[in-house]
């Protein structure tokens, strides 16, 4: 089969899956939050409310597009795109499963690309998502939006440091920046070789830092409803708002996938080293799905932090801990 | 990519010239700092062009990329210090226009 065609098929399947998963996640967020509050959640559109995201999408399309007075129209339009695109680009390097053979056609490894510097790509592109938030906040010409954007930028930069340092620990363990190599190094059939057991502290810091990085509860200072009336996207409506939403949920899904890949061995099946690809894919979905659920679970459990507490946690707790963790990891690797 | 080296160098020269123009004509301190970043990037591009030219005839020459990495580190330092200075100056005069800081006495 034409290799170009194979890449095209893989890309469209993975991006379709990502957008579908993001849509499903908006539904899951509402369903789980409802269940945790002893409610039913959306159950009118389709069976068990499964078509609710579709209804939401149609609603978004038919809403009126507003641009506030005095706002910079170009940057106002650019911001949602800058928020959604980096979040969706990062999924390109996530390895979902091993070699896929379907209908007698060898599709190769199930990921859009196995980049040599996959982790670096992910961190670099992921770091760009902060622009959507800041520029959106600034371009809205509203003080609440501006405050939300400022907070988001400070928060995301602070936690990106810890996040990168933790990723470095895992990279040092494997000796590769390729996410597939990191997965394969953990795919020994023995779950104890997963990084979560050799790097428990790193795992903990990473999971918490992903919450801050994606602006989710309990660190959602960018959109803090009670003080900032939704922060950077207060002034947005219609599909522009939907793009911000899509960006947020895609970022969550990518972060869940990344946590599963870095610490839980990605698609490696416990006690079955060379499982067929669909079992690997199922395992991956189970692991990533758990972390995606964790995002929702924590959101509907914990109250919001205060902003100074957030900064204190990021700079005075996580950064030293991450540095110490990196130091110990390096020492152990060089001595072993 | 089979673009000749001189095209990369020419691009670097043009970017550098634009950076110089911005540095000399603008009076907004932040834009002046950005012009400096632009010039540093033009230098990086030159180094990359050189590294590509020399690596393509023999073994990989890593000096160019390593210098680029150091330049990026220094650029980060420069931006951080420069912006801290801008903030400190802004506190004094409530402006970031270079004209306001042209005199020494105040």
């Amino acid at each position, binding site marked *: 089969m034409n290799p170009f065609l194979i890449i095209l098929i893989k890309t469209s399947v993975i991006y379709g899956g990502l957008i579908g998963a993001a849509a499903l996640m908006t539904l899951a967020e509402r369903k789980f939050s409802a269940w945790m509050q002893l409610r039913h959640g959306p159950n009118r559109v389709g069976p068990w409310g499964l078509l609710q995201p579709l209804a939401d999408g149609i609603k978004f399309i038919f809403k009126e597009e507003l641009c506030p007075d005095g706002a*910079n129209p170009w940057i106002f339009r650019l911001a949602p795109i800058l928020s959604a695109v980096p979040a969706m680009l990062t999924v390109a390097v996530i390895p979902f499963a091993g070699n896929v053979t379907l209908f007698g056609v060898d599709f190769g490894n199930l990921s859009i690309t196995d980049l*040599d*510097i996959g982790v*670096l790509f992910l*961190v670099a592109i992921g*770091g*760009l998502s*902060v622009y959507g938030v*800041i*520029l959106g906040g600034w371009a809205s010409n509203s003080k609440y939006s501006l405050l939300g954007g400022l907070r988001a*930028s400070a928060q995301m*930069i602070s936690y990106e440091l810890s996040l990168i340092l933790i990723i470095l620990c895992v990279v040092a363990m494997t000796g590769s920046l390729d996410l597939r190599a990191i997965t394969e190094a953990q795919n020994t059939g023995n779950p104890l070789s997963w990084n979560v057991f050799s790097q428990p502290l790193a795992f903990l810091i990473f999971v918490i830092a992903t919450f801050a990085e994606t602006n989710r509860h309990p660190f959602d200072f960018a959109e803090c409803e009670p003080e900032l009336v939704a922060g950077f996207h207060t002034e947005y409506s219609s599909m522009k708002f939907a793009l911000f939403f899509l960006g947020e949920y895609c970022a969550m899904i990518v972060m869940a996938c990344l946590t599963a890949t870095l610490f839980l061995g990605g698609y490696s099946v416990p006690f079955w080293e060379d499982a067929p690809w669909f079992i690997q894919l199922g395992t991956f979905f189970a692991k990533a799905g758990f972390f995606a659920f964790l995002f929702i679970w924590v959101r509907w459990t914990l109250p919001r932090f205060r902003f100074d507490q957030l900064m204190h946690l990021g700079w005075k707790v996580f950064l030293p801990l991450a540095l110490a963790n990196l130091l110990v990891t390096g020492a152990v690797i060089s001595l072993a | *990519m089979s*673009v*000749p*080296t*001189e*095209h*990369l*160098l020419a*691009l670097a*020269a043009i*970017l550098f*010239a*634009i950076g*110089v*123009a911005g540095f*000399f*004509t*603008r*009076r907004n301190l*932040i*834009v002046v700092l*950005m*012009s400096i970043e*632009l010039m540093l*990037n033009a230098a990086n591009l030159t180094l*990359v062009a050189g590294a*590509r*030219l020399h*690596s*393509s005839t*023999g*073994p*990989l020459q*890593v000096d160019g*990329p*390593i210098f680029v990495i*150091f330049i*990026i*580190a220094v*650029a980060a*330092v420069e931006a*951080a*210090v420069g912006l*801290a200075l*801008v*903030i*400190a100056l802004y506190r004094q005069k409530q*402006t970031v226009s270079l004209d306001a800081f042209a005199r020494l006495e105040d």
Partner: protein
Amino acid sequence: MVDLLFYVAALVAVLTAVGVVLARNPVISVVSLLTCFGSLAVIYLLAGFQFLAAIQILVYGGAIMVLFLFVVMLLNLGGLSPEDEDGDDPLFHDRRRSAGGLAVAVALGSASLIGILRGARHLAEPANGYALPDEGFDALPALAEAMFTRYSLPFEAASVLLLATTVGVMVLAKRQRAVTPAGEKRP
């Protein structure tokens, strides 16, 4: 095809660089510069330096330009640049100085362009058409080895520089606390 991509990226880089200098609004300048750095990263990628491209986006895109944007917003310069408050053209407000600056830039640019084009005769195209050696595409191990052996001193110097900068910036940007005669900090 790939070459065409280079020229597109080069065009974008030049146009956005001009945008940085000409934009009246500092936020537009920042966004233009960001795009310019992005297209430079594309050029690095095309030239075979994946790592540099990633570093370019990571450091410039993810850190430096965010810092610029942060300061622009912190000082609330979102509106027009200070030089535009009197409604003048940002480039030609002070005609003599602007003309001098432009002259320097044009002279510098044209001189280096002429030099490059004259020297280009001596730069024969390599037989393999600028293809990097095999390890070039995955230059990370070679890069790391050189960085931590031959260039370990500059590397450490850079880390010291970064540390000194961190402390210096903290001192510079920290607001001076008013101190009461008793030496106690005001609440």
